[in-house]
């Protein structure tokens, strides 16, 4: 029997899951404090020692190893499109779906101010897109000339726009000493999102260039390449859960997943963007969609979370104590390793987790909006998630809460929020053993086993 050992090299912990995919069993999971900033191989070895205790050294040696990484903020990307609702939206969905964190995004014609912002942001990859095939050329060429001519980017550029000028764009960047990779247009026609090829290129660059880890060469000797960013692995696992492995399982159906962290909150949705009986505007939405909220987190982003959800947080238990709560949030922002040491601090962590889910769900979902014109016409802007049946929580701030169900239920639409395309009712689960990343990593190897492992990891979320 062969094991598959999956690693997630994160900033705080290096996590491991030892899987027996044939029997859909998990032999052991562990996490050790991360050493990715010093020497990633130390955290790896500490985990492997734990694995050896459970399955034996020989089994560890012969195991198939897979790894993802979310260290150092993971993959930081800038996306440049031509229009907000079409190529930029398509580009954002492509980058986020590849597991990236989009640190800046632009649409329209680039100017010096925007170029300076891009330079300062110092992304790992820049995605340049826009124009349907046979569509716009001149605005794309302007943006290419601005980026290449002024040498404002030092990172690789992926060009996924109008194929008509792809070669010229690449030549322009190469002449300026900027790496440029060509891939299929992500938005070749008005009603088509073609994210797959661009995401493969992103992963390829990530695998070979970006891991944010010291000791990477040594790590490779054990686990091979870091095959993808951890969020991309979670996206695969979610897709597998929703659709099933293609064998006998039909999957759990449409679902949403929340990963609340110290710095960010990631929201994933797995659902067809079913029409809501009205016109949907903009580029098509993907089945597996991810959004990252860089200002919603329980530690380094606690202050910005408070600023974003002040009204929500100050309701109930914390009403009337605005200054005090703000100070408590500032302390969390300053001390990333902060641990609550009394009931009030624990209660605030619960409230902050609820606020993060509440706010991020409302940013992720589509909305019903009033269309232009005198007539009473509604349009659908963004993804319709009203048919989602399951909410899943992952990551410590949700899993280790006393009331995880209460946190997840914040994603549900309230009766008065009729414009939101969120579900009204859903069952709540947590990824109790933190196995979704591992299921995603091993989905290609054994989809049936990976699916079962993901399902087995889901435990009904308690309400305390």
């Amino acid at each position, binding site marked *: 029997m062969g094991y598959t050992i999956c690693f997630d090299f994160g900033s705080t912990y290096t996590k491991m899951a030892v899987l027996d995919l044939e029997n859909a069993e998990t032999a052991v999971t562990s996490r050790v404090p991360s050493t990715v900033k010093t020497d990633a191989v130390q955290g790896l070895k500490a985990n492997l020692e734990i694995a050896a205790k459970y399955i034996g050294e020989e089994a560890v040696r012969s195991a198939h190893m897979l790894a993802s990484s979310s260290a150092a903020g993971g993959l930081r990307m800038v996306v440049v499109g031509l229009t907000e609702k079409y190529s930029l939206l398509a580009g954002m969905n492509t980058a986020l779906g590849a597991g990236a964190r989009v640190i800046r995004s632009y649409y329209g014609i680039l100017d010096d101010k925007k170029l300076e912002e891009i330079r300062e942001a110092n992304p790992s990859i820049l995605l340049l897109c*826009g124009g349907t095939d046979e569509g716009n050329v001149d*605005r794309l060429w302007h943006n290419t000339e601005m980026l290449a001519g002024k040498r404002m980017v030092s990172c690789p550029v992926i060009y996924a726009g109008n194929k008509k000028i792809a070669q010229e764009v690449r030549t322009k960047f190469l002449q300026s000493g900027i790496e440029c990779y060509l891939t299929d247009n992500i938005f070749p026609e008005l009603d088509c999102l073609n994210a797959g090829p661009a995401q493969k290129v992103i992963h390829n660059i990530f695998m070979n260039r970006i891991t944010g880890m010291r000791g990477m060469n040594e790590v490779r000797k054990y686990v091979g390449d870091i095959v993808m960013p951890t969020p991309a692995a979670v996206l695969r696992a979610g897709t597998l859960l929703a659709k099933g492995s293609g064998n006998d399982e039909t999957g759990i159906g449409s679902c949403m997943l929340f990963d609340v962290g110290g710095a960010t909150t990631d929201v994933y949705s797995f659902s067809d963007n079913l029409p809501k009986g009205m016109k949907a505007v903009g580029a098509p939405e993907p089945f597996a969609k991810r959004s990252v909220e860089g200002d919603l987190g329980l530690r380094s982003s606690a202050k910005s979370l408070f600023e974003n959800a002040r009204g929500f947080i100050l309701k109930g238990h914390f009403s009337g104590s605005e200054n005090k709560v703000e100070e408590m949030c500032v302390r969390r922002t300053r001390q990333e390793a902060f641990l609550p040491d009394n009931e009030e601090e624990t209660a605030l962590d619960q409230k902050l987790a609820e606020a993060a889910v509440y706010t991020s769900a409302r940013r992720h979902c589509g909305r*019903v909006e009033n269309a232009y014109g005198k007539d009473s016409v509604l349009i659908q802007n963004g993804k319709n998630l009203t048919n989602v049946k399951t909410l899943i929580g992952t990551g410590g701030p949700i899993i280790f809460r006393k009331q995880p169900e209460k946190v997840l239920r914040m994603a549900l639409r309230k009766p008065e929020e009729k414009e939101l395309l969120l579900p009204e009712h859903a069952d709540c689960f947590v990824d109790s053993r933190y196995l979704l990343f591992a299921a995603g990593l091993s989905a290609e190897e054994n989809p049936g086993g990976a699916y079962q492992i993901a399902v087995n990891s889901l435990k009904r979320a308690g309400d305390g």
Partner: protein
Amino acid sequence: MPQITRQGLIKKELPSFKEMQLYAEQVSEGWKIGRSPFMDAHGIKSEREYKEQCKKTGKIMRHAHIGYNSAEETIAAIQYIYRELQARNASLDRFGICLDVQMGVPEEQRQNIPRGAGLVFQSEEEWIRVAQAAPVMVHFGDNMIGTLNSIENLRLAFAAGGTTIGNVSHYYTYEYPFPYDLNLRTERMVEAFCIMGLYKDRGMLVHSNLDDGFGALFHDLADTLGWAKLEKHIVEDLIGAKLGHCFGNLYSDPVLRIAFSFALDDINGHDSCGTMIYGNTTDFDTDFRKNYSVTNGYLLGDMIGQIHRPTGHALNAVPVSEAARIPSRDEILEAQIMSNELERYARMYEPYMDWEKIESCEKKLLEGAEVFYHNTLQELDRIGIDLENPAEIMLALKRLGPDYLERYCGAGKVREEERIPVWPTDMVKKITKIKENALRHISQGELTGTRLVICSTDVHEFGKNIVGSVLKKAGASVHDIGTDASPAEIAETAIETDSQYIVVSTFNGVAKTFARNLLDTLGKYQLDVPVFMGGLLNENREDGNLPVDVTEELKQMGIICTKKAEEIVEIMKERNKTARDRKTT
């Protein structure tokens, strides 16, 4: 076939029908029933009673639509028209007032919806004053039952002396630009119909204009007739009220209009009490001289039909200006005078009609209608809809939509995945004919390499589709962003697709505002793209309530105004050539 489930259609359970009936009884207790001068003049207690008398005596009933946006102007118009007709010994039996879309919304929510061109009552007193302005019976058809304000509007209509009140169709097609509780809207509508049922013995008649609802969206007239039967089943058999149908806006062929009214009468077991037959407005255009023959053409047929087999319907002589703007009171008066004069000719023609032919047409429609009716009930049953609960049926039908119903329950035979209509509607015939004519004049490849965005500013897509087909045949790359397009959506699409032209079809009376916003938006996006506009190029003036033609103003703004698809091709060819010549020099 899509997998439709009951849960998908009835997302939240509705109250039982019994509960709705009880609520209807409670809420309507002690309601005042007004009495109009028309009732006094004819010694009747309802319009329905009057209709029954007309059916017996063979009197032709007449209807006029009055669409001003203030109570004072409406009252003055009613009194003026009545007075002028009296002086000529001519008759008008009823008038319909066009309530604004705001009236379909409870007062506290009206700030959420822009005011349209219709009438907004400011007080209960205004309802009464308008309804009782002259001895002509009032008809409350627009934005009443089926909206978000069903019960309150019904109460006010009762108090004003209205006895024909609608509109079943509005529930299916009227929407609101803010989120609302559809279950509650459905519940209140059914309760309002229950109240109409409670007052059936007082002559209350539920009105449904088939052309306002799904009836107008079907491609097959047999399906429309089947839909009428379905509405009758819901309102009469299940709820216990009396239903009167209206049709006619979209029916051009006068013989078909007669056949359809007879078929409706068959569906009603020869106990029809129709509200009115609307004028054929599909043949109207902005040439008023031509429209005189349209009005006289359909009206003559409608009268012959009513003389031969009265169905209770009043006949509506549509003023010749209706396609271009809200008619003035003199134009309404003129139409009514024509209608009165025409009657004697209709009586001369009637004995010489070939009724056998019309009856065979009636039979064909009826057979198709039965198929649609039974298929639809069967489909609802299969999905698991409670066929005893009218609210659940109506909510399910609304969510299924006309495309689904026609595709999966329609009467026509399926050929190559398309259902062939038993009797195509005039709109389908007309569109097909215009398209064929336009395509005949176009050579393939004339616009090869030309890229353009096409859209409509409202829900109408026939015009857009015709122009789109013609431009495609000419070889252009047509980027169709559909209906209800916004200026930003148009601009962004034009950028992504590098379009050289924008083609906008508009029918909702916002031509000038839309053009101004579009040009502003294009400027913001730094786009210099020629804009074509076609359709109904009109808009309300700020100081008045008559939409006026704005073609000249649009031209001054730089918009290329055109009515014909072939013309657009010619202009684009010319412009492409100029651009090419400029490049070579």
